[in-house]
């Protein structure tokens, strides 16, 4: 079974898509098929952690079938500690997305759910493929459903804003991945294979010409940085979040880019990643404050969530490019956290938008009485986002910040830590404007927009996510153990580049950092 599970996870959503396309588009039929199929995918993904040996280095559940001989492309998939939990995350978010769009999508839901399931395959494909060409295939494929669904099911279709947002999203990523393909071809021209392990060995062996390799790694970096998005390349996020349907927006940002940064930039080009690190750390630390401050002044909650996401994703980039054990595991954990929290917040904002038809926070007010379940679960998710201890956000943030502070640079860590204050300010501000008496419309008699409370299914979904947030917050070792073994190779290989990993426990004072930069 182990040898087959990954291709099974890839095939199940496709099978669901085909089933939806064939069956008629009557009432909730496509939605039910999509829900059952996504739950089946989730169950399949759960098989992975059940049979995963944490200590065993390298990839597990590997499958390597030759696909094409001419350009040597193989259907080579495998999972290690790094991608294990991300695959499970995609599996988890699949049904959550379907529930989130249960009421929102009424007309031609057949196309919606077909594309949605295609998106799941593409994302799982990105996380599991070890052949760079296969990876590139899934990477590009994951753009289409997001763009098409935003254009078709976006919010304000009237003035074409949804179409523009979809186009902007697609072009940002597609233009950035053109140099990526050239870099891939260059590597293929010099090594004759797309296989991750051989490429890693070839780069490490130093046989490839130096300055060109530099450009190749820059091409890789930019392509992934756009997808994260790192500060400066984030033009597409606010528009997409305020236009895209909820199920799409919750999976569009973060996960793919961050995983690719670790796997195909830091692990593939250790020396060059080491050189790019100072810039990335600076961008990430500023990104945290940038996102948090902009979120502070937003009037619409979609834009607020967009800038909050930019802030929390910058945490992950900060962790990755610190190359410390704590920092990197923290970054991967934070990616999973951002996925879980983002999904919950998106679902609830979707409910608010769908019933009140407006995303201006001032229009709401005093909903805590009308929608108690929504208020409590929203507060829990909000607190998880701003990193309240015993919830998952805190563990990720603490690891990233402590890793950066101790191992990388104290000034950047301190600046990043300021984000903690701002995030509390904007999230509580949002909670107050929407749920508590914000005095907005209360005073002039017109009650805040009437919003419906969560339906049974939605409450169960968000409650499951909330329990997961608490579980990760209380026992993160279940998750970080697998991640740490996978990142062992990276943090040690970084050792060779002079960034000594932080030895915390031995009590000796380690103020090591990269080149003594404080």
């Amino acid at each position: 079974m182990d040898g087959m599970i990954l291709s099974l996870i890839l095939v199940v959503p496709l099978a669901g898509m085909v089933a939806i396309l064939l069956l008629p588009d009557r009432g909730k039929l496509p939605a039910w098929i999509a829900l059952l199929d996504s739950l089946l995918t989730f169950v399949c993904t759960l098989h992975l952690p059940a049979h995963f040996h944490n200590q065993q280095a390298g990839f597990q559940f590997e499958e390597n079938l030759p696909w094409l001989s001419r350009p040597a492309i193989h259907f080579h998939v495998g999972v290690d500690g790094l991608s294990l939990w991300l695959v499970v995350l995609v599996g988890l978010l699949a049904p959550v997305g379907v529930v989130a769009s249960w009421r929102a999508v009424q007309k031609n839901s057949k196309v919606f759910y077909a594309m949605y399931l295609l998106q799941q395959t593409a994302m799982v494909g990105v996380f599991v493929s070890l052949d760079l060409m296969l990876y590139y295939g899934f990477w590009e494929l994951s753009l289409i459903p997001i763009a098409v669904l935003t254009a078709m099911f976006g919010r304000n279709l009237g003035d074409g804003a949804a179409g523009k947002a979809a186009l902007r999203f697609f072009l940002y990523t597609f233009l950035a991945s053109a140099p990526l393909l050239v870099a891939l071809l260059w590597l293929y021209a010099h090594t004759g294979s797309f296989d991750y392990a051989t490429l890693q060995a070839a780069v490490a062996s130093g046989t490839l010409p130096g300055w060109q390799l530099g450009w190749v790694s820059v091409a890789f970096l930019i392509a992934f940085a756009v997808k994260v998005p790192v500060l400066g390349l984030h033009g597409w996020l606010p528009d997409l979040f305020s236009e895209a349907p909820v199920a799409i927006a919750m999976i569009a940002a973060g996960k793919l880019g961050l995983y690719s940064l670790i796997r195909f930039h830091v692990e593939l080009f250790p020396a060059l990643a080491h050189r790019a690190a100072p810039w990335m750390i600076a961008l990430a630390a500023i990104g945290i404050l940038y996102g948090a401050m902009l979120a502070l002044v937003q009037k619409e909650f979609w834009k607020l969530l967009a800038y909050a996401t930019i802030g929390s994703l910058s945490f992950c980039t900060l962790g990755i490019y610190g190359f410390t054990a704590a920092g990197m595991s923290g970054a991967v954990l934070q990616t999973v956290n951002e996925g879980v929290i983002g999904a919950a917040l998106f679902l609830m904002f979707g409910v608010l938008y769908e019933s009140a038809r407006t995303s201006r926070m001032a229009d709401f007010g005093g909903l805590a009485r009308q929608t108690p379940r929504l208020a409590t679960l929203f507060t829990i998710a909000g607190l998880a986002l701003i990193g309240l201890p015993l919830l998952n956000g805190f563990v990720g943030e603490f690891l990233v910040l402590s890793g950066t502070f101790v191992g990388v640079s104290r000034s950047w860590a301190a600046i990043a830590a300021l984000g903690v204050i701002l995030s509390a300010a904007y999230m509580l501000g949002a909670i107050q404007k929407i749920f508590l008496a914000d005095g907005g419309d209360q005073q002039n008699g017109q009650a805040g927009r009437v919003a419906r409370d969560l339906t049974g299914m939605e409450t169960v979904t968000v409650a499951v996510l909330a329990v997961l947030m608490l579980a990760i917050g209380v026992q993160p070792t279940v998750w970080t153990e697998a991640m740490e073994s996978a990142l062992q190779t990276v943090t040690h290989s970084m050792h060779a580049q002079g960034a000594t990993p932080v030895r915390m426990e031995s009590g000796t004072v380690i103020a090591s950092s990269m080149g003594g930069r404080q």
Partner: protein
Amino acid sequence: MNEPMLFLPLIALFPFAGFLLNGLFGSRLPKAIVSTIALLFPLLSFAVVARAAWMVHGGMLLPVAESGAPTWIAVGGFHVGFQFVLDQLSLVMLLVVTGVGFLIHLYSVGYMEHEQGYWRYFAYLNLFLFFMTVLVLAGNYLLMFVGWEGVGLASYLLIGFYIDRKSAGDAGKKAFVVNRVGDFGFLIGMFLLIANFGTLNFHRIGTQLAGHPAISGATATLICLCLILGATGKSAQIPLYIWLPDAMEGPTPVSALIHAATMVTAGVYMIARTHALFDLSPTAMMVVAVVGTATAFFAATVAMVQTDIKRVLAYSTISQLGYMFLGCGVGAYSAAVFHLMTHAFFKALLFLAAGSVIHGLSGEQDMRRMGGLRKAMPVTFWTMTAAVLAISGFFPFAGFFSKDAILAAAFQHGTLGKALWTVGLITALLTSFYMFRLWYLTFLGESRGAAHQDGHGDGHAAHAHESPWIMLLPLVVLALLSVTGGWIGIERFAGFLEPVTGQAAMVDAGHTELFLSVLAVLVAALGWFLAHLFFGRDGEAAAQAAQSLAPIRRLLQGKYWIDEIYTALIVRPVQWLARFVLGWLGEWTLVRGSAWLMSGVVGLSGELLRRWQSGNLRSYAAWLAAGAAALLLFALAGTLLGLNGFADSIHWAVR
């Protein structure tokens, strides 16, 4: 040696269970069940603490460490678990927290009887107890930080309990954000500890420091300053005190529990817990002492002119906390903790009594509309009197012993100590003045209740009714504690805490110590006399004094406009920076602008190329011919001029 288990984790888990039960099912349960749950679990937790105290009394050696779950975070060599440690200091704190906590729960049953969201209130209260016990029992800084932010959350939820009132929501948000500023400092402090000690465990840090302190004074000061920032955030000292007065928006028992007895003392507890580090850096100690004294004096002045009874008590709490900081600052940690304990008793009592007064006057909080409640609410009156006497520092009451211990320790702490002592003494004077002012305005004189509203004679006094026994019982218990709390005496208390807080500088007995305590009592009496003068006999003395000091009065009433200054200096610039610099410059010009520019250029060139198709056949033919000509030139010129790489393959072309 089979030490009997103390079940430390249960102390925390009981209130958590209460929170879960009330939180999940409270809305559907009748009030009686909700209150039983809410009272049962804190009582159980108090029972465990009492049993532990009894065991310690019976000769059990402390500290005892037990762990809830083995590991919490274990990444890259950094390992931290859910370790619960009980030692003398945390035992004292636990007794206070769970004891006073339970009493306030009891009181709340009466006070919150006819409030909407009854179950929600008790769920949050239990949640608070859970986080406070975790904070006190934590064996390492990270677990303490969990409690630290947890109590911040609970206070946010409870302050904002009245969800219909915008001011409550704002106050809750303000409290949490200001606390978060303090937590930022605490976080940086923790990182410094990890960087320098590799661990956050108190015991391991203690052993590393006891051995040969490898860290320099400067780093120690840096760490302490960060921790102090955290402490000022939580214990409402300058500069992060602004949230406490607004926190009075929450129900009164909340103010009693959180903003008087337990949460605000977390800062003092943390400093006492890391005294080993503070001892290493005299500058940090000096900062603590100065901040404490300044806050004490400042808060006392503002308290003098407050008209809302709860605001007076809030500023009084800030002032008393200033004293505790002064105690820590001069190294008398045990004195500070002693004052913490006694303060918990009489300040909780003050708040609860005020609550009972407000309850009696059905929501009236403005002292100018009170008066003459002495006969209407005798028990509240007598218990409140005990508390007022205790806080002013009259002889047999608890306040005298603990405040006197702190002032004595300060007195001996060199010249700076003497200066702090004098300010402390003046603050003691102000303290007794505003407390007796409150006392007179609330209970004595004739009722000014109705006079303002509709003019008929009887006013509040007539239909002010005494609170039910369930509210009065805690008052009486706390009154007893306020009286007897101090009799333990600082020597025995310091002796008990000695293994944790280290060797306290002993006060040289004999006449200086006696002289100081007599002076303290005289100062308290002077305060009472002034208050009597102004407010005892209502009339012209108070009025004409107010005229002469009008400018100062306005300054104090405006609370030195600190809030406005903060908003102007911090909040407005951040919002302006975010909206304009980042919003316009960052988003619109740089990010969007660059993308728009690029697409514009490409689009424009597209437009030009589109124009190229003029549709006229002859222009097409012209382009075709031009292309052909170019091709010919290229082919011929290329070879003749020998462009790069041309010459080699068709060398004979030149012939």
